[in-house]
């Protein structure tokens, strides 16, 4: 495959970025998108140029590190996959591919296509956990949990925090991420004691960091590689309302 790549290059958070154009030849349709960028970087290094910086780690779609805005879609033009799982067979010979970093105020660019997603960590630090009660490991069946609730909690917990929801949303809203994290605990008995405190603290932090609010376009759901559902956002809203109105927190 012959490809033309338009890639966002930016030296650091403060410098002005620009698009640079690269031409690649002989790209196999079977290679992954990141492997294609690896080939480009190899060529750039051989020319004593700076390689294009991009985040990646597991390359199995489970770590949430990779994340590129490709031709107007987070993680590219395949559904329910991360960038590392996107393959070049989804493009055609002669295509021009525009690659941009996630664009959101709380995700400042570090370099090129790498953004700082520690805003998500800060939200998690506010309550995305269950306080540990030390002691022996409880018996697996000691706390009865209905199967459907366990499944729902597991589906919500599948969020890998890649930030595609923020990247896709026209408001750069993190509601799908926060709602998944709130839901995975709210659905289980272990999460109940801290539910009110958790939801209020996480929403407060989300707002402080400058994420937008949810306009219910559901772009986040459409682009989430782990197919986190919009019903989580409705649950977040319910949990927040309940916490504000009923709780003594």
């Amino acid at each position, binding site marked *: 495959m012959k490809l033309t790549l*338009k890639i*966002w290059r930016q030296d650091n958070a403060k410098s002005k970025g620009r*698009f640079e154009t690269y031409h690649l030849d002989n790209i196999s349709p079977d290679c992954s998108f990141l492997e294609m960028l690896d080939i480009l970087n190899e060529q750039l290094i051989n020319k004593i140029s700076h390689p294009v910086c991009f985040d990646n780690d597991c390359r199995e779609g489970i770590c949430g590190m990779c994340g590129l*805005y490709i*031709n*107007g*879609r*987070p993680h590219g*033009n395949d559904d329910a996959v991360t960038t590392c799982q996107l393959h070049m067979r989804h493009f055609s010979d002669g295509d021009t591919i*525009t690659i*941009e970093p996630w*664009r*959101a*105020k*709380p995700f400042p660019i570090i370099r090129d296509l790498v953004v700082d997603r520690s805003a998500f960590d800060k939200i998690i630090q506010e309550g995305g956990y269950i306080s540990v009660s030390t002691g022996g490991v409880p018996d697996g069946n000691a706390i009865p949990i209905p199967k459907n609730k366990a499944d729902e909690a597991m589906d919500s917990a599948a969020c890998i925090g890649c930030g595609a929801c923020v990247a*896709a949303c*026209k*408001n*750069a*809203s993190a509601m799908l991420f926060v709602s998944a994290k709130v839901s995975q605990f709210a659905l289980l008995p272990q999460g109940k004691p801290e539910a009110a405190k958790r939801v209020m603290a996480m*929403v*407060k932090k*989300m*707002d402080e960091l*400058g*994420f*937008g*609010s*949810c*306009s*219910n*376009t*559901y*772009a986040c759901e*459409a*682009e989430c590689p782990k197919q986190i559902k*919009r*019903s989580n*956002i*409705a*649950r*977040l*809203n*319910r949990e*927040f*309302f309940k916490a*504000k109105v009923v709780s003594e927190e």
Partner: protein
Amino acid sequence: MKLVKLTSITKKMALAAAGLFLLVFLLLHASINLCIIRDDGGLWYRNACHFMGTNYIVKVFEVILLAIVAVHIILAVIVTIENYMARPVRYAVSSKTKTHTGSKWMIWTGGLIACFLVLHCMNFYAVKIGLVEGKYTAKIDKVDAFFQQKAMKMQNGELNQKETEEMTAQLQAINSIPENKVDVKNKELVNLTKEEVFKYCGTDFEDYEPDFYTMANELFKKPIYTLIYLLVFVVLGYHLFHAINSLCQTLGCNHKKYNGAIETCALGYAVIVPLLFAVVPIYVMFIK
């Protein structure tokens, strides 16, 4: 940076709750409007307007309604600005994600509806609160009672010469009142300008009300106004369809059992209610 120190969810919930109130109000408004097409010379419509204009509970609701409209508009603008600020650098390639397009247009469709509301208020509400002059109506029995009261005063010699002359002039005027100003069936003087009210009923007569029936009929006879009116209600339907789905989600109503029903209700409301509004100008323009 947040323009208002409320959480994003609180703002969205307040926006949705205000919208929910407005949905109920629209139904009430549509049902009153439909009285115009009743073939009773405007009896029901004028009675409904009289009730809405004089009932104290309605007056309290009117203040609440204005406050809620203001909250809805102000919050929508604030949320839109904050959302815009959340992405200071836009993408070079516009989004190719398949989404509910209604949401992207909410602020624009809402803005258009707000502009129409200004025009609508200038035409009707401003007349009601006395900012703009319109057409007025007065019950004949009230005008009669007013005259009798004055006549008693005249007999008792309580009126000075100027007042007596004025009353004589009014009596002459009302005896020669044009036919189109008198609704014999409903016993009302209608289609009066303020000058005519004073001419026929006396300068100190206060029991007149805006004649919204005549004003509405006159407006709907104008093709340009009717066209704008119909276009705005198409836009309103588009706004409402997303609004109802969205407010349910924002208020936490998302359940796989009921999501289908919510979407059907949203579509039904977004089509039927604007149609109920649209029926009136179409009837006045083409059938009446």
